[in-house]
């Protein structure tokens, strides 16, 4: 048990990543490489690019899943040893991007793989990718939430329209 806690404490600090291009335009790939340069230096957090999915903890998926690449991506995912994370990098991997409904694209990475973290952007800034990794490691809090905005006049109109729909409720109150 003590060893397990020890591992849990230190294992997340060294994520080894394998970078998969599933049909991206290379924009996201360049930004991923940018994160590994000394300027942003992802190796501070133990992040290292590895050459084989069997050595990796994390899959960085860039690009929409094309129909041709989908079985290969599944094989890559199966090759990663069990405690694994999938990061969808870029608008294409998050939701299909501009090609979400074209004939040769299945959609975002979550159509094929269980995605753990989404990093939207076209391409995402290197800082945005670092931020996503920091969120995954627990170094930074998540900042986004679904936004719901509504015109105030609509509230007025609907509150006026409601008693007509349910007159009983108005009499009781």
């Amino acid at each position, binding site marked *: 048990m003590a060893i397990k806690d020890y591992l849990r404490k230190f294992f997340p600090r060294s994520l080894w990543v394998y970078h998969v291009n599933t049909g991206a335009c290379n924009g996201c790939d360049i930004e991923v490489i940018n994160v590994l340069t000394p300027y942003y230096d992802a190796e501070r957090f133990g992040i290292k690019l590895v050459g084989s999915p069997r050595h990796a903890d994390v899959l960085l998926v860039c690009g929409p899943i094309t129909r041709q690449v989908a079985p290969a991506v599944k094989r890559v995912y199966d090759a990663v040893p069990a405690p694994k994370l999938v990061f969808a990098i870029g*608008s294409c991997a998050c*939701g*299909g991007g501009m090609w979400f409904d074209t004939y040769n694209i299945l959609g975002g990475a979550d159509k094929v793989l269980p995605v753990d973290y989404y990093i939207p*952007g076209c391409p995402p800034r290197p*800082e945005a990718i670092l931020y996503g990794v920091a*969120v995954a490691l627990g170094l930074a809090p998540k900042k986004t939430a679904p936004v719901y905005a509504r*015109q105030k006049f609509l509230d007025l109109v609907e509150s006026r329209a409601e008693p007509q729909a349910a007159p009983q409720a108005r009499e009781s109150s």
Partner: protein
Amino acid sequence: MIISKLKEALICLKAGRVTLPYPFAPRVPEEGFRGRVVVEAEKCIGCGGCAEVCPPRCIEITDPGREKRVLEFLLERCTYCARCAEVCPEKAITVTKEFETATNDRQDMHMRVEVFMSTCGRCGRCYEAPTPLDRMMVTGFRPPTGHQGGA
């Protein structure tokens, strides 16, 4: 040989530290960066110009009721081109510099805006407002010139 190595070491020491302290210190993007879009619901007139020009078609417009129009922004496939902000006649859509949008839930990238649509006084139905593009089909795509009827 040794001197050249020492020179190399000196150059490396001179360079100093270039790594940004980013995840621990905030960083403001430079001027002109386009981040997540924000909609001011009070300004929106529901014309649908943004949905028309959006390259990934991430703005979905539905009319669930007689007086309501819902704009659903599916920002996970937004390409941050800011054409929606450019085309918006009321300047309701603005582009922020927010780039820290990484999330573990796809729902976090959705934005829902509900807009009141005025109805026809006679029949009580919503009428379709012309989009800015339709307006440009009438007035022309060139900016207005100083003198009129030159040609």
